[in-house]
C-alpha cells in the first residue's frame, strides 16, 4: 500500500498542477520572453512594421525578423535565411506547403503521397485537395508507427508531385525514416514536405541530410510564443515554387502576405538559438526523465503497453496504455497532472485515436492510453510524484474495473458477448 504522505505534494518538492503535456504546447522560456518584450513598446523604438521601408522603426523591425530567420535557418541547416517564410503557425505552414505546391505544379501532376498518422492539418488539407481533383495516397504504418520507405518508393508514379511525411508523430512520438525517404524522393524528382513541428530541436532534423524541400515548424512547441510558425522552402536544387494562399501586400517574397508578428518572430529566433546551443543536453536530460517514469510505471503495474516505437521516439514522449483503465477516468484521477489521452471520451467525435488505430492497437487499449509529454521545465521530483500517483490511481481504478476482475479470474475478454452501443 502506498504511503499517503508520499503523495502529499507539500512533502516533496513539487508544485501542483504539474505540466506533462509538452507535445500540446510549451511555456515560453524566460530568455525568449525577455528578448521579445522590447518589440512591443514605444520606448525601445522597436515596435515598427517590418514592411515599413521609409523609416528606422521599419528597418529595425525588419532587421530583427531577418536575424530570427537566420537563427531558425541554422537550426535546421537551411542554406539561406531566405528559405524561411513566416506564418501564423504550423497549420498555416502545412496548408501553404500542400495547397501552394499542388496549385503551382498541377500541370506536372496531380498525385500526393502522405501517411495515415499525419496531423489533421495535413490530412484535412489533403481531403480538400482531393475535392479539387488531386489524388492522395495515404500510406499505412507498421505496428511501431513507422512508414516503410519502400512503400513510398512503390507509391510514386509519374503523376506524383509531392510526398508529405511528418518527422515525428505528436501522439506516439514515433520518428520517421526521413533520410531514407528523402533519398527516394530526390532520386525520383518529387518534392518532399515534412511536418517537423514535434521533431525540430528534439531529434536531429537537417534539411540537407534528409533532402527535405519544405518543412513546417512552429515556435510554441519549442519554448517560443504561440501564433508564430515558419515554412522552410528550399531555394535551390531544386528551387521550390508555391502559389501564395494569402493574398495581400506581397510580404515574404510574395509567398505569404500579412504584417509580420515581429515580437513573436524574435521569440521564435531566440527559441531556435537556445535549441541549437542547448538542445542536446536538454534532450538527454528529458530522455533520462522519460525513462525514469517509464521504468517506474512498468515495474509497478502489470498489463501496460507502450504505443509506438521505443527505438525511434521523441525523447520526451511516453504513450502508454494501462489495460482495463479508461483514459479519461485516469486523467480525472490524476487531475493535478496535465497529460493527454487517446480515449474516445476525450474527443468530440467519441472515436478513439486514429493514430493508435493505424498502429493496430485495439480500441480497448486505445481507450486506455495516456500520453505523457516531458519537457524542459520538468524535474526528477515531478517524475517521481507522477509515477507514485499513477501507480496508486491505476490500482484504485482497476479495483473498480469489471474488466480487470474478469481478467484476474482468467476470463478471455474477447470471448465475451459484449453489447456494442
Amino acid at each position, binding site marked *: 500500500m502506498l504511503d499517503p504522505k508520499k503523495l502529499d505534494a507539500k512533502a516533496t518538492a513539487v508544485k501542483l498542477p504539474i505540466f506533462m503535456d509538452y507535445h500540446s504546447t510549451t511555456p515560453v522560456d524566460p530568455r525568449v520572453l525577455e528578448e521579445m518584450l522590447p518589440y512591443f513598446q514605444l520606448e525601445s523604438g522597436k515596435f515598427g512594421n517590418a514592411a515599413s521601408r521609409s523609416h528606422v522603426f521599419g528597418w529595425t523591425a525588419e532587421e530583427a525578423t531577418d536575424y530570427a530567420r537566420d537563427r531558425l535557418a541554422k537550426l535546421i541547416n537551411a542554406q539561406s535565411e531566405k528559405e524561411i517564410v513566416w506564418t501564423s503557425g504550423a497549420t498555416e505552414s502545412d496548408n501553404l506547403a500542400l495547397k501552394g505546391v499542388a496549385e503551382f505544379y498541377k500541370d506536372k501532376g496531380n498525385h500526393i503521397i502522405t501517411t495515415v498518422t499525419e496531423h489533421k492539418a495535413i490530412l484535412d488539407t489533403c481531403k480538400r485537395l482531393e475535392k479539387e481533383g488531386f489524388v492522395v495516397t495515404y500510406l499505412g504504418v507498421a505496428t511501431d508507427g513507422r512508414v516503410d520507405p519502400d512503400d513510398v518508393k512503390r507509391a510514386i508514379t509519374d503523376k506524383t508531385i509531392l510526398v508529405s511525411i511528418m518527422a515525428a508523430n505528436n501522439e506516439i512520438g514515433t520518428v520517421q525514416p526521413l533520410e531514407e525517404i528523402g533519398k527516394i524522393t530526390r532520386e525520383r524528382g518529387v518534392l518532399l514536405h515534412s511536418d517537423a513541428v514535434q521533431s525540430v530541436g528534439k531529434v536531429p532534423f537537417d534539411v540537407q541530410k534528409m533532402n527535405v524541400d519544405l518543412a513546417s515548424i512552429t515556435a510554441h512547441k519549442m519554448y517560443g510564443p504561440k501564433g508564430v510558425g515558419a515554412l522552410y522552402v528550399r531555394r535551390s536544387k531544386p528551387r521550390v515554387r508555391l502559389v501564395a494562399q494569402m493574398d495581400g501586400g506581397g510580404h515574404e517574397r510574395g509567398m505569404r502576405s500579412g504584417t509580420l508578428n515581429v515580437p513573436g518572430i524574435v521569440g521564435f529566433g531566440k527559441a531556435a538559438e537556445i535549441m541549437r546551443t542547448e538542445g542536446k543536453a536538454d534532450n538527454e536530460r528529458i530522455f533520462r526523465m522519460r525513462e525514469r517514469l517509464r521504468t517506474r510505471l512498468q515495474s509497478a503495474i502489470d498489463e501496460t503497453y507502450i504505443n509506438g516505437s521505443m527505438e525511434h521516439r521523441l525523447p520526451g514522449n511516453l504513450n502508454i496504455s494501462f489495460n482495463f483503465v479508461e483514459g479519461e477516468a485516469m486523467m*480525472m484521477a490524476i487531475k493535478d497532472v496535465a497529460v493527454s489521452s487517446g480515449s474516445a*471520451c476525450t474527443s468530440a467525435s467519441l472515436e478513439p485515436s486514429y493514430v493508435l488505430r493505424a498502429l493496430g492497437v485495439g480500441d*480497448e487499449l486505445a481507450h486506455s492510453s495516456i500520453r505523457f509529454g516531458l519537457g524542459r521545465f520538468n524535474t526528477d521530483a515531478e517524475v517521481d510524484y507522477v509515477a507514485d500517483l499513477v501507480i496508486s490511481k491505476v490500482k484504485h481504478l482497476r479495483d*473498480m474495473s469489471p*474488466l480487470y476482475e474478469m481478467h484476474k479470474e482468467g476470463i478471455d475478454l474477447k470471448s465475451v458477448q459484449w453489447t456494442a*452501443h
Partner: protein
Amino acid sequence: MAYSEKVIEHAENPRNVGTLDKDDPSVGTGLVGAPACGDVMRLQIKVSDNGVIEDAKFKTFGCGSAIASSSLATEWIKGKTVDEAATIKNSDIVTELNLPPVKIHCSVLAEDAIKSAIADYRAKQTAKRAAKAQ
C-alpha cells in the same frame, strides 16, 4: 471538459464498489457496454424475499461520468423495490449529475445496467419457480 462537482464527487468517492455472488439466486447481474466502446458497467442487486433491493454493487470501466452514473444508480436503487428501481430513467441521472450532451450515453448505460440486472434477477426467480413446480 469541465466536470460538474457531483460527477467529481462520485468519481472520487464512488459508492458501493464491489462484487456480489452472481450464482446466488437472489442476486441479479447486469453487464452492459463493450471494452471497444470505452465503457463497461457491471451492476448487481441483491433482492430480499419481499422484493426490496437490499444491496447493490457496481464496477465500471469508463470515464468519470460513467463511474459517477453507475455509482449514483446503486445509491438510488438501494432500498427500492425491484419495480420502483425499474422506473429510473437515464434523464433522472443526467439531471442529478448535470451531464453534458456528450456524456448522456453514460446515463443510458447506467439505466441499461439497472434494467439488465433486474431482468437477470427475474429470470432467476422464474427459473426457480419453474424448478419448484416440477
